[in-house]
């Protein structure tokens, strides 16, 4: 079994009388790891504890097997790259100057720094804007320079906090592609977001869902799917008899123009009902398929279950 790259042990963070993170246990072993949660769930607080800027009220966080607030903090920080949600780097600097500064923080030799800057600016497609001050960058450009600065030290772990939330779809896709490529190069990517389709697009290996500071679920999308035992069933045509018969089994049925979409774990029972009605009334079934579950549904279901006091890790 792989050694965890990030592991949190019952981490709790309390701000005055607000519990921002509550006994959180996470384990990241590599690949792309998505931390999901609605706004205010405690994602940013968790990340800031991981990078060492916030101190946990209780518990401990280990990166590469060492406590982030321990004596090896500097060694850990040499191995990570962090991109905040709101890029607030030194706005009066140009991209080149910022990266040179970061290079000097890492004590990189000047020639190596120059080479790295050139390479990274090309990677994030900012070569033409390298002499422009960051304050004049668009939101997408700021996020890309954010990624570039995080990659200056060639980190093994990238921690990204909602980096696509302020971007347009084009910018978002660019970033996603970039991250997928970085992951292919072997970097572990820990990304927090509340935009769920992105995690799917990134093909995250694992996700964790947190709400009000508590971990609700953790695992791969497939594992979570199994755990929730939910799937999406599409039935066509959208027939009145199907609807009436299924309403007693599945409470929420979404009606499309010529189909019904069901969110249920009762696949066999649904099939039985549909097959019987079809035979008795000679209704031709155009389509009956189970699509599995998408991440958004997992997320919503997990949150709903949590609110109902159901599934709990």
């Amino acid at each position: 079994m792989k050694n965890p790259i990030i592991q949190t042990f019952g981490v709790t963070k309390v701000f005055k009388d607000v519990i921002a993170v509550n006994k959180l246990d996470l384990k990241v072993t590599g690949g792309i790891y998505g931390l999901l949660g609605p706004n205010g769930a405690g994602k940013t607080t968790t990340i800031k504890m991981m990078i060492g800027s916030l101190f946990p009220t209780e518990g401990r966080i280990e990166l590469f097997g060492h406590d982030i607030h321990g004596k090896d903090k500097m060694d850990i920080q040499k191995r990570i790259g962090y991109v905040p949600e709101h890029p607030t780097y030194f706005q009066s600097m140009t991209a080149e100057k910022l990266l040179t500064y970061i290079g000097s923080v890492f004590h990189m030799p000047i020639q190596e720094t120059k080479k790295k800057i050139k390479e990274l600016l090309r990677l994030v497609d900012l070569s033409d804007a390298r002499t422009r001050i960051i304050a004049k960058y668009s939101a997408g450009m700021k996020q890309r320079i954010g990624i570039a600065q995080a990659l200056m030290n060639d980190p093994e772990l990238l921690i990204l906090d909602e980096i696509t939330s302020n971007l347009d779809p084009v910018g978002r896709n660019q970033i996603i592609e970039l991250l997928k490529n970085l992951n292919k190069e072997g970097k572990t990517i820990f990304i927090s977001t509340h935009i769920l389709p992105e995690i799917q697009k990134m093909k995250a290996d694992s996700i964790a869902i947190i709400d009000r500071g508590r971990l609700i679920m953790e695992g791969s999308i497939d594992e979570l799917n199994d755990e929730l035992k939910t799937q999406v069933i599409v039935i066509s045509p959208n027939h009145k008899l199907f609807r009436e018969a299924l309403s007693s089994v599945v409470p929420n049925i979404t009606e499309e123009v010529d189909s019904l979409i069901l969110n249920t774990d009762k696949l066999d029972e649904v099939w039985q009902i549909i097959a019987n009605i079809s035979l008795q009334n000679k209704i031709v079934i155009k389509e009956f398929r189970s699509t599995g579950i998408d991440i958004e549904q997992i997320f919503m279901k997990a949150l709903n279950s949590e609110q109902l006091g159901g599934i709990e890790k």
Partner: protein
Amino acid sequence: MNNIIQKLKKLKLPILILSLFIAAGFIIQYTIINENKSETFSQDFSTPLQNSITYESGNILIENQTILEDIIIKFTASVSVVNSTLQGSIYMFNMGNLFILQKSNITQNLIISDFSTLFIDNSTIGGSIECRDTTSMELFECYTPTTTVWKFDYANIILNSSNLDTLNEFGIAGNIHVVNSKINLVSLNGLSSSRTYITNSNILLLNDLVFPSNVITGPFRFGIFTFNISYSTSERIINLTWIGWDSPIIDGYLNITFQIYFDNQFYAKINGSGFHDQYSSSYQIEISDPGEHNITIVSIDSMGNKYSSTIIIELLTYPPFQWIPFFILIAAITGLIAGMIIWIKRKQNRGYFSSIGTIFKTELVAGKNKLLIFAITSAAPGILLSLSFWVINHLVGSIAFDGIRDLINMFFNIYIYYFGLIFSISIGAGSVANDKKNGSLSWFFSKPVRRWEFLWGKILAFIVMIVITMICVSISFTLGSIFYVDPIYITDILSIGGYIFLIGLIALLPLTAIVVFCSSVFKKVGLAYFVPILVFMAMPSLISFLTILAGSDWPLLFSFTYYFEQLGKVWISNVGGLFGSIGSYGGLLGITITPLTLDPITIILIMVALTIIFLSLATLIFQKQDIP
């Protein structure tokens, strides 16, 4: 052009606020202040007073009459009042002349202005006499023991063989000669360009508030007095000037001898003769030994009558700036920093990771524009100082070294009070707090940067900025004054320059430490700005009042301004503190307040301790603080 317009648009709120302030200033200036002024000092003569007689031209004789109305004398009218009683007030302006002669009696006030002339001989005045701008008045053999005379700008007054209750002097220029007279209180409040000569007179109380006190090079103090005075000065060249009268001869040939004794030893003899009714003379004595000295001037007239007056001068010495130890100290500090850099580099070669140098360099580069502005603005006090000296020199003809010291200290106190706060807040208040607020600090601390290194990288950069700025300030003050002093004082000016640097450093270091502490500890940016303002500006005023309650100056220990003012008093001039103790006014309130006098070493130790405490606390708290 568009850029400029855009920037101006962005500035519209500050411009609006600034405009409102300026407008408010003008309103206050032209309504409240002028209103008060007019209530106190002037009256509108454009409409005639009720029950008044106006004389506008010609020669008018009022003899053996009693006039009940007010009298207005305008333009070139020349009015002679002989053996008469005027029961109303008298107003004169526009070059009027008034002669009040032969046992006349004026029961009300006399106000003269605008080139008017007043001569009163052997008469009495019941009210006060107000000599406004550019007037002249002479009182001869007048017994007016309840009268107060007011003198304003450019008014000349002669009191000869007369009696007054009070003589109040204000404004710039104009002379007062008091001869053979008796006055209960002489209060000198104007500028030093206004001279007062007191000769052979009896003054019960002399209240000399002229500042700088010795700008006039020893005028009235050295007349042929009936009283002796003493004062302290750092002047090593004492200019004595005086007036002597040869009493037997009026408007005739004068023959008078003056003998000068220095420390009871005969020093010089001066003979004066000629067709004068008075003889003024001057002499220069150079004193080199610190301590108390006496100078006696003996006047011997043609009948052999002797009049003498002695002045006791305490020659103050301010400690010369110790350049050699200072440079050794600077070299030691530079060596220490260089040693630290070498030590860190060596450690780095063995794998130690430190970013203090990077942060220091970046902060210095980022602050270079501010530093440039501070360096340029530091020329301002020097220019203002130079301008002030030029104006005083122009008006008086010379400027004494005491005055130069006093003015330098006063300017420096004002400058360091306002500039110190602006400087430390502008470099330090936002340095950590802003980064914390906008989130860039939490990002930056994801890099391998120790928090104390981050803080101290900045602090070291601030120290360098303080040193560079204070060098500029010191040069500015030195150049602003060095061209106005006698060559024998040049070393003193250079010494003052050294002390300005040192005091500035001593004042700014703890202040910046407090600002850095606030910036790194407080979570709200506003507090990082507000608390230093409170500590530096509001607290000294509040604490000044506490000295009254305490009956002692010890609360000043908590007043930041006290320390650099005290150093200024010891090293630059004992005059010129701005804030200090309100206890110095305790006498007016009938309160005795025990003064607090700390020696410079104690002050330096306190300031250094404060700096270390605040920076250590900032470092310790910042180390363990959540960075949002």
